[in-house]
């Protein structure tokens, strides 16, 4: 579509809104008597988008409480300061509290569930479109995808984070959360529920920087009656990004269960003692590489009201076996073959430096399977998270493209041209900034930590990695995905992969990985046995 036609379409949209306003006598700023101090979306709903955080001690204990070890004191958020447990459950709550150091699911970095994630001392970024609300949490890349499109919850499956379906009642977002498991707690004090938990959350903006968060808790297996909690959520105004706290990765690194690789991990700010000579002084090229393939539209594409391509929806990347090797490869024992996704260099081979070829072969030994970060259920990084054989959901609220990965990871891509984070802040998923070039979304990612692998066969990236990704709609249901990786510590030149992503009518489920990961111990046994043998 030409710029001119796009502008005409936008103008037509504005006209329709004006006519609607005249006909209904109701401006898209809410019902008569609606709070005039709160921001609103183009469709007139309260605009909840932004970074929020509770500032209370509910994560320690929902009720009035004095301080205990690593638990700050605080006032009750529960109506009447009483949780109406059945007698057996009251006893169980006391047991939980007594053994919380080991029994608290959060002590093992298990997903906190809803509502606990909403009042933990970590910020979250809420994104809002007409049919979805997405919440990306700093804590362990957990997210919530709240459907506000009238759809129904799933039947016969449980999730750590529940199944959230929302609707608007006037200016209040009301969310039913069902399909919980019975493994999460409400707080560190051992307040708990069963899988029969049903939550009704109410989000009401009281001013531009405050959401009143109200929650009704029902669980006939544990409580004698429904009960309520209430708290304000405050807008985070001194930060434009939510960063990462990867609970399990930090814990494993601290315990020595996930070991530093000095060849790839970020060594710390230049000049510190941690900097190994081999990786000192690398020069990260800053100029984005040009597109390597020409993505030609095959049919009409979806567009937003502003004329930009509408990328939103549920997608299955067709990774072509990239998670088991980016180059063309035959199937091997329990490992699928791959069609090869490298489009540059033309020979389809990764231009690995000699050390990297040796290391990659070494990573394929059984005793190195333990070292793949995704075997630990750590997030996959960029670009791997885009081609793991697992669905993703793209949200496209104003100013952002947000990617939610079924394997519990997210990428938030701001489109406002903001500068990248300082070089010293390194993240598993990196720091992404996007912009439109015609109908192509161009994403530049840096600040990567060098801890990720590109796939199960150990293809390598380091902290010097920068990535330029391009997402181009080819028709209403197909995206062309392309990623150019520049990593002078590992490769003699930049290289590019390309693959399609297919839009599907499906919901994201939830892959809880670390919570039930039994494979890691098996892989560790294999590694430890080899270490024992070679030490002898």
């Amino acid at each position: 579509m030409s710029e001119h036609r796009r502008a005409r379409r936008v103008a037509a949209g504005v006209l329709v809104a004006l006519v609607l306003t005249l006909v209904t006598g109701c401006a898209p700023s809410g019902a008569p008597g609606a709070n005039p101090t709160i921001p609103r979306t183009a469709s007139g709903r309260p605009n909840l988008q932004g970074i929020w955080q509770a500032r209370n001690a509910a994560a320690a204990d929902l009720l009035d409480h004095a301080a205990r070890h690593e638990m700050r004191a605080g006032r009750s958020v529960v109506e009447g300061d009483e949780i109406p447990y059945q007698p057996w459950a009251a006893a169980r709550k006391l047991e939980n509290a007594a053994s919380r150091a080991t029994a608290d699911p959060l002590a093992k970095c298990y997903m906190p569930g809803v509502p606990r994630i909403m009042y933990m001392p970590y910020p979250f970024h809420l994104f809002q479109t007409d049919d979805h609300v997405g919440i990306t949490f700093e804590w362990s890349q957990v997210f919530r995808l709240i459907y506000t499109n009238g759809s129904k919850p799933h039947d016969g499956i449980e999730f750590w984070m529940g199944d959230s379906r929302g609707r608007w009642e006037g200016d209040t977002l009301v969310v039913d959360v069902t399909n919980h498991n019975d493994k999460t707690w409400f707080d560190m004090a051992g307040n708990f529920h069963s899988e029969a938990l049903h939550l009704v959350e109410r989000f009401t903006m009281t001013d531009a920087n405050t959401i009143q968060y109200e929650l009704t808790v029902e669980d006939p297996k544990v409580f004698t009656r429904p009960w309520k909690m209430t708290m304000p959520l405050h807008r985070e105004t001194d930060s434009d990004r939510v960063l990462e706290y990867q609970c399990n990765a930090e814990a494993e690194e601290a315990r020595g269960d996930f070991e530093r690789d000095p060849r790839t991990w970020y060594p710390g700010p230049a000049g510190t003692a941690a900097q190994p000579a081999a990786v000192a002084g690398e020069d990260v090229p800053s100029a984005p590489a040009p597109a390597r393939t020409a993505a030609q539209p095959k049919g009409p594409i979806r567009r937003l009201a502003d004329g930009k391509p509408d990328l939103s929806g549920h997608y299955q990347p067709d990774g072509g076996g990239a998670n088991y090797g980016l180059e063309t490869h035959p199937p091997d024992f329990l490992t699928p073959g791959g069609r090869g996704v490298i489009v540059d260099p033309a020979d389809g081979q990764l231009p690995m430096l000699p050390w990297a070829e040796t290391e990659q072969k070494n990573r394929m030994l059984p005793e190195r399977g333990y070292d793949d970060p995704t075997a630990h259920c750590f997030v996959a990084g960029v670009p791997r998270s885009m081609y793991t054989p697992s669905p993703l959901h793209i949200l496209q609220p104003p100013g952002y493209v947000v990617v939610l990965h079924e394997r519990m990871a997210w990428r938030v891509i701001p489109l406002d041209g903001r500068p990248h984070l300082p070089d010293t802040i390194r993240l598993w998923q990196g720091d992404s900034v996007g912009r439109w070039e015609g109908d192509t979304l161009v994403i530049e990612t840096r600040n990567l930590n060098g801890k990720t692998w590109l796939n199960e066969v150990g293809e390598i990236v380091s902290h010097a990695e920068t990535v330029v990704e391009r997402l181009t709609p080819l028709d209403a249901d197909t995206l062309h995905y392309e990623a150019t990786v520049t990593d002078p510590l590992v490769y003699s030149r930049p290289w590019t992969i390309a693959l399609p992503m297919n839009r599907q009518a499906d919901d994201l489920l939830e892959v809880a990985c670390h919570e039930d990961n039994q494979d890691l111990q098996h892989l560790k046994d294999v590694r430890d046995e080899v270490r024992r043998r070679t030490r002898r």
Partner: protein
Amino acid sequence: MRRHAWVAAVAVMMTLAAGSAAAHHSFSAEYDDKKPLKVTGTVTTMKWSNPHAWIYVDVKDKRGKVVNWAFETGGANALYRRGWRKQDLVPGTVVTIDAFQARNGTPTANAQSILMPDGKRLFAGSSSPTGGTGAK
């Protein structure tokens, strides 16, 4: 033996093996292609979890001692998308399983095919929910 493994691996890809939907780790590092296993036993429980579900089966060894084996299958999400529900595999069901044993020597294996007494294949028989040639 190597050829046996190869044939099994191909069969897996063609029939959509139970054990390998959407891996998050290297199967070849965890399981041994030189230790294929075929057993018949009684299901004791099923752990309906991600990234893999696990079926526990009592199997009699050569000396008649009962060992509870853990068989890895596709994750709960993949099973759910194929129409399976938690209650569909009843404890007490007798199943015959083709699998590859874990390298760590414990009674653990990656299930390639799970046959019910009536010859129906458990969890298999539809195209991959994860799509793409590389879904495993």
